[in-house]
């Protein structure tokens, strides 16, 4: 090994001949491969929805900008914080089970579900406020998109919550361990998808003008 190679290998162990990484990159994502095919299908559906919103707005800028001001942006921001927090809790639950810390994992999942329920409650208050003003799908093009897009996402949150509940119950029963947590990773991946979609939805519908 030359002096230059030696210096490089001291700085970067991966550059050493025969180096085997303790965390080799995997070919497949965490959890069941089937959930990832489902996630891609869901992302595609949301992507089409987002594109339709943006293109429709392009032809109705004044209406969309005016109607956007009638939304509760603070509720949208609170819900973003709640979804991110739920996702973080679920990621911490997976990290804990990888270390065989079942009780901690169960607790993180519970906090994740509490944050997700918080999202549901805030969203229901938001819908109630709009419905009490007589706003519905037929009010105008903006509200047709707002109600259908956010409700489509809301249904995914409810499904994600049900999945997290099932994962939490199985964790409580000792169904996951450091050696076997494939099911938890599958549920977690779905939940993170729900969060990822909202990361686009919030600025698009509530903020950008």
């Amino acid at each position: 090994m030359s002096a230059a190679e030696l210096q490089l290998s001291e700085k970067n162990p991966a550059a050493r001949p025969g180096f085997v990484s303790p965390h080799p990159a995997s070919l497949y994502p965490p959890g069941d491969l089937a959930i990832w095919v489902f996630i891609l299908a869901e992302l595609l559906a949301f992507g089409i929805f987002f594109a339709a919103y943006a293109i429709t707005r392009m032809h109705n800028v004044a209406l969309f900008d005016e109607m956007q001001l009638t939304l509760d942006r603070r509720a949208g921001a609170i819900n973003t914080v709640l979804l991110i927090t739920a996702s973080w809790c679920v990621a911490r639950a997976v990290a804990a089970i990888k270390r065989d810390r079942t009780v901690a994992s169960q607790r993180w999942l519970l906090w994740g579900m509490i944050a997700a329920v918080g999202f549901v409650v805030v969203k229901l208050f938001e819908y109630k406020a709009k419905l009490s003003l007589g706003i519905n799908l037929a009010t105008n093009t903006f509200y047709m998109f707002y109600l259908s897009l956010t409700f489509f996402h809301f249904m995914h949150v409810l499904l994600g919550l049900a999945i997290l509940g099932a994962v939490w119950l199985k964790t409580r029963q000792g169904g996951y361990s450091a050696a076997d947590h494939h099911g938890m990773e599958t549920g977690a991946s779905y939940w993170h998808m729900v969060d990822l979609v909202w990361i686009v939805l919030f600025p698009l519908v509530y903020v950008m003008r």
Partner: protein
Amino acid sequence: MEARRLDFYWLALIVGTAVTWALGESGAAGPAAVLGILSIAAVKGIWIAREFMGLRRIKVLWPGLVIGWLLAVLALIALAYMKGST
């Protein structure tokens, strides 16, 4: 340590959300604001995919599909908004 890393990204995502909300509250509008807000969304989305979904440790195909979806959608939104503002 994995837990500390996740905590860091949670905090960074919250800060990103606060900045997005503040931009909305300040009445920021137009192409520069749109590009700024979409850039924040792109960074937040990449963090979620890589750190929370665990795609950081996965070879290129799956991270490419998820992050590729995110960037394609955000680029399309940016184009529609730019066209709408002219």
